[in-house]
């Protein structure tokens, strides 16, 4: 079982809690029955990566144009060439993450997308975000 700390214990000894988590030992913090699981970003990122892959679909417009649909967020990017459509989709995906964190997380049709949102939200920069969405 993962050790469970009372909120006050964790607050008073937070530095040691973080040291333990970074050393690979996750912790549960309990505040009057509401429990928070604390783990490192790297571990969380690794776990999400295995479960929440993106599957962008590229399509040709008629008579021209390139479209990329991202089913995990139900969004699309479009442009005249593929590289620009990728940029457009990435912009849109980052806006989606921002909107999800602000308010969409509470909507029943968006709540289930949290794994993909968190994965993208954990990207440190745009290039990492690009690899998350389109792969290496």
């Amino acid at each position: 079982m993962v050790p469970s700390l009372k909120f006050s214990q964790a607050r008073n000894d937070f530095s040691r809690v973080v040291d333990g988590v970074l050393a690979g030992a996750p912790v549960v913090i309990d505040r009057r029955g509401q429990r928070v699981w604390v783990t490192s970003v790297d571990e969380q990122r690794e776990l999400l990566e295995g479960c929440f892959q993106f599957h962008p679909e590229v399509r040709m417009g008629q008579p021209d144009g390139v479209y990329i649909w991202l089913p995990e967020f139900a969004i699309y990017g479009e442009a005249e060439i593929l590289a620009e459509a990728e940029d457009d989709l990435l912009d849109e995906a980052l806006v989606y993450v921002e909107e999800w964190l602000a308010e969409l997380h509470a909507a029943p049709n968006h709540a289930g997308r949290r794994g993909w949102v968190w994965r993208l939200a954990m990207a440190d920069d745009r290039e990492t975000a690009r690899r998350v969405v389109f792969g290496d």
Partner: protein
Amino acid sequence: MRLPTYADLKRFCEVDGWFDSGARRGAKTGDHFRYGRVLRDGTGLRTRVSHGSGSIRDPATFKDILRSQLQVTEEQFWLAVDEGVAPSRPGDTPPEPPGPGLPYDLVKNLTTRSGLVLEDVLRMSKDEAVAAWQAWPTSGGAAPEEEPGSR
């Protein structure tokens, strides 16, 4: 398949009562307007409309926009754009208006003398409640001396 211009998409959002989500968040709009709408069941809809005079040029993407972003049929979309008819969606049906209330005396008699539970009584129409009172055994099946609800 008829494909929409950006102006058509914008028109749909206006007819269907979408809000400008970019402005609401105070975000820069970039190359697109962004719109949102919350249905009565809490479903959050969102879409974007590019600036300029272009159009959606891919039928598959338009179908995905209809199904996943706007949650309407193609027919509903064009009816909104061409004729200004706002679509109805399963998750956006207004609640049934409450029926007329029951007279106080009738409710009081049914709950204190007939022994019915208040919640059950309040689910009855006035006719059903009067019938229940008249069917109460000690009333002999006759109308009470003073008809409940007559005051």
